[in-house]
């Protein structure tokens, strides 16, 4: 009898070392029943993508507070697609101005969760994204 678990990669791309939020989300999602792989800080987009593929995750959550999201988030999306893993859903969080959200969504980031987001909101997103796939 199949027992599928949803696997999520939480990663910190670029040089930003503020991991309080990423660690909180990893733990909170674990408490909601997800299997969460956490890569730690200072991950290049290439490393994130290879990790996502090997771990066969359903979602990749990128946390970034240093302002480099417009460059690094789309890079992850593009590399996933190029590696034949475009079905992995990418979402992001951290310090991301609202004005940048349309651009990021256009480049394939499914959702952006800014400061003040609750665990509940993220879980709702994950459930609906999973149900529609």
């Amino acid at each position: 009898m199949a027992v599928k678990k949803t696997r999520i990669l939480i990663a910190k791309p670029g040089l930003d070392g503020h991991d309080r939020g990423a660690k909180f989300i990893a733990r909170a999602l674990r408490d909601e029943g997800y299997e969460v792989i956490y890569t730690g800080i200072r991950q290049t987009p290439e490393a994130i993508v290879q990790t996502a593929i090997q771990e066969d995750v359903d979602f990749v959550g990128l946390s970034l507070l240093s302002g480099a999201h417009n460059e690094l988030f789309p890079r992850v999306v593009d590399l996933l697609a190029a590696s034949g893993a475009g079905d992995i859903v990418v979402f992001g969080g951290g310090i991301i101005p609202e004005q940048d959200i349309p651009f990021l969504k256009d480049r394939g980031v499914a959702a952006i969760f800014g400061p003040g987001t609750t665990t509940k909101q993220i879980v709702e997103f994950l459930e609906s994204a999973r149900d529609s796939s």
Partner: protein
Amino acid sequence: MDLVTEVRLGNLRAIARTISLIEDLEPEAEALVDALYPYTGGARILGVTGSPGAGKSTLVDRLITLERRRGRKVAVIAVDPSSPFSGGAILGDRLRMQTHAIDPGVFIRSMASRGFLGGIAAATGDVIKVLDAAGYQSIFIETIGVGQTEIKIVELSDIVLLVLMPGAGDEIQAMKAGVMEIGDIFIINKKDLPGADKLRAEVEYVLSFKNPVQAAGGGNGDSEGVSNPILMTSAVQDDGIEQLQEAIESYATEIENAGKLEEKRRYRLERELLGVLNRKIHELMDLHIEVSRQLPEWTERLYRRDARPYALINEQIRNFLEERKGDQ
């Protein structure tokens, strides 16, 4: 895509997907494992166990580097416990191995125990086969951490690396039978912490019972003539790792020459077959006797002293066998 072909070609996505199918107990998993089975047997399986915090992941990370230098493809399965409350897990071992993330010759997979007691996951054995068939020559299995019950690693590995650290109460743990039995190579990591030498002495002492001839200074250890190396390392400082790898190589050669490797592998296959058999029987019984559905009622009857344990179960089995006879 044809997963079997792709796995054998080393396609990372295919390998990863196949592993997921196995983990998730999907119906196609069995056929996949069987299809890949003929291509297994080429990998050296190294189990890595020891108390939490002893530095297993960091040690594996350093060993990966040395294995790659020898031109070997390396795979790692890192197991972490699932939360008994939520069923979720944080799989954080790979964090310490991330420098290898973009090396095409390294495959790292994190697995949650998903309720399986034994220090690994139920699917680990089959996942090893996939990686073996995909061409990974050294496969590390990093377990949750050793205690009295987490010894399943022995049934999966060619060589078990037991990682201890000073000051973790390992001195006492080391004495407990079973724990010492499972190790092939003993590593005292974080060797610059106080108590390292004492720990080493204690390990030697316990091993002396296992290998009386070796302890007496004669010959090569146990009755098959293989001795258990003890290494002192500091993984974080890259100290003693080369010696460790040498020790692994020598040990591997020794046990191969002494016929012990073959013995272990046969033992492994034996345990695996029994495992599959038990699982299948259980599934079969569950299907026909509907254990899960009936369990509450049985428990209720037992609680009221309305039934007796063995009689109850034997009756179920008898009925099942009657039915099967009736089917024929």
